[in-house]
């Protein structure tokens, strides 16, 4: 974990409403593991007191690439930052996905929204190839399919309006695939997306006796474990629960660890 002042090399649209932000980050980039994130101080965001967390899409040659969508004030201001501008990063942060997957396991990635960006680095770094399920409301919401295909991964798509892939939720093609392959494959799930999706995938993993690594998206304050903003309820061994910091002990948790609880879960 480091503080690094980096400069913008490239900043452009990347389709599906996302923008690609490529940064020269010689210190942080080499340290990044899939599923980790960086905490970005957005330049000229005057009245804001927090950084913004973004997963790492690519990390190579001393460069970090992020894919982000303008969803609010901070990301809108970020969207107009120009190449050459200076950005302060803290990273890499969080635990990331486990990479020590037994050789007989098939990685099954499930993503919604920016989850595709977060999971891409995992696909790239995993020794074995696997399969990806991508969901979105419409074809415009499905990100970086081609990047996975270029790695030789098979991508299954579901959109709620049916404009691309199967109509419906991503669990549709996922369940179909699972039914087809559960006898001949040993899957291990990796998911990043809306809570409802994470919960569905987690439930299937628990039911099937597989493991599911879920990257949860919580609002962050400090990003380093100090402020206790980003906490998630985890199961304790004695049947009770305790808080874990998703910026520190997470954002990736195994499905069995998380105690989902409608009341407290942020959107």
């Amino acid at each position, binding site marked *: 974990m*480091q503080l690094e002042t980096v400069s913008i090399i490239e900043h452009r649209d990347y389709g599906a409403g996302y923008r690609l932000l490529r940064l020269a980050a010689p210190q942080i980039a080499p340290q990044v593991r899939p599923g980790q994130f960086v905490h970005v101080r957005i330049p000229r965001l005057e009245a804001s007191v927090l950084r913004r967390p973004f997963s790492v899409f690519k990390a190579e040659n001393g460069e970090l690439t992020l894919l982000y969508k303008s969803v609010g004030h901070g990301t809108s201001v970020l969207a107009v930052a120009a190449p050459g501008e200076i950005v302060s990063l803290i990273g890499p942060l969080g635990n990331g996905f486990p990479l020590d997957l037994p050789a007989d396991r098939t990685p099954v990635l499930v993503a919604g929204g920016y989850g595709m960006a977060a999971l891409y680095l995992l696909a790239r770094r995993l020794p074995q190839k696997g399969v990806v399920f991508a969901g979105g409301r419409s074809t415009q919401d499905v990100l970086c399919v081609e990047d996975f295909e270029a790695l030789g991964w098979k991508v299954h798509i579901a959109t709620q309006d049916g404009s691309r892939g199967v109509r419906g939720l991503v669990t549709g093609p996922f369940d179909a695939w699972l039914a087809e392959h559960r006898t001949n494959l040993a899957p291990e799930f990796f998911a990043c997306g809306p809570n409802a999706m994470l919960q569905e995938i987690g439930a299937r993993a628990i039911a099937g006796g597989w493991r599911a690594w879920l990257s949860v998206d919580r609002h962050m304050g400090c990003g380093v474990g100090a402020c206790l903003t980003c906490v998630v309820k985890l199961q304790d061994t004695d049947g009770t629960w305790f808080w874990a910091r998703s910026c520190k002990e997470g954002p990736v948790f195994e499905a069995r660890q998380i105690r989902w609880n409608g009341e407290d879960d942020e959107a």
Partner: protein
Amino acid sequence: MTTPDISIKLAGIPMKNPVMVASGTFGYGPEYAPLVDLAKLGALVVKGISPEPWRGNPTPRTVEVASGLINAIGLQNPGAEGFLRDYLPFLRKFDVPVIVNIWGRTIEGYAAVAARLSQAEGIAALELNVSCPNIKEGSKSFGSNADMFKRVVAATRAVTKLPLIPKLAPDVFRIGEFARIAEAEGADALAITNSVPAMAIDIETRRPKLANVTGGLSGPAIRPIAVRLVWEAAKAVKIPIIGIGGIYSAADALEFFIAGASAVAVGTANFLEPTTALTVADGLRDYLARHKLGSIHELVGTLAC
């Protein structure tokens, strides 16, 4: 000209510089240690510790607002034993005064945690959090009820020889009264101020943005309020004051010193720039040199008005 001296002795504690990090914004030490040389801090005030572990509030716990943050963490902490076991040994490795922010749900709770921590090695002082607006079980009233406040300061004073630093609630109209009570009850210094009771509402869902409904406003938004409180309190008492509220730069900190603070603490700013306390300390040195002042003491309470 020699480098100006920014070291201080506050409530008997020698500090390399007068810039501390504020409770709840810097964890217990290890969190920011990879980014910030802890030995360069004036002091490190850890997040509020209660006699027993405490889970705090449900989420969401913080929300950003204009030039500020509202937090309702709810004082989550590992309890006195957890702190002594899991964090104090780590902190002892650094050459930095460790101030432990404490709270209880009852007067006895305050006394219990103060007494327990006083037995440990490596704690420089206790900061009495009577002002956190989040905890529902009564702690709230300690800071805004003069009689309760007096009793809690007296009860902790009775059980500890450590320097005692009550942290005053941002009671905008009666800060002098609370400052005088603390001084009379034997406080060694005052911390002013805590976050200001506030709330934000999600207009689409018509629900509060914080699970706890209300929380405490911190950050640049409250700085002019905090400077005002420090100035008022400094007129009321002789014990030193630690100024807290929206400090992001040396310029911000200097307002507090000029208003009457002997030291400052950086809070919410740590989230944006973890090294803020260090850059503030450097900036103080530069300012003193530029103004040909030999030490930070020469600046305290020098407001001309």
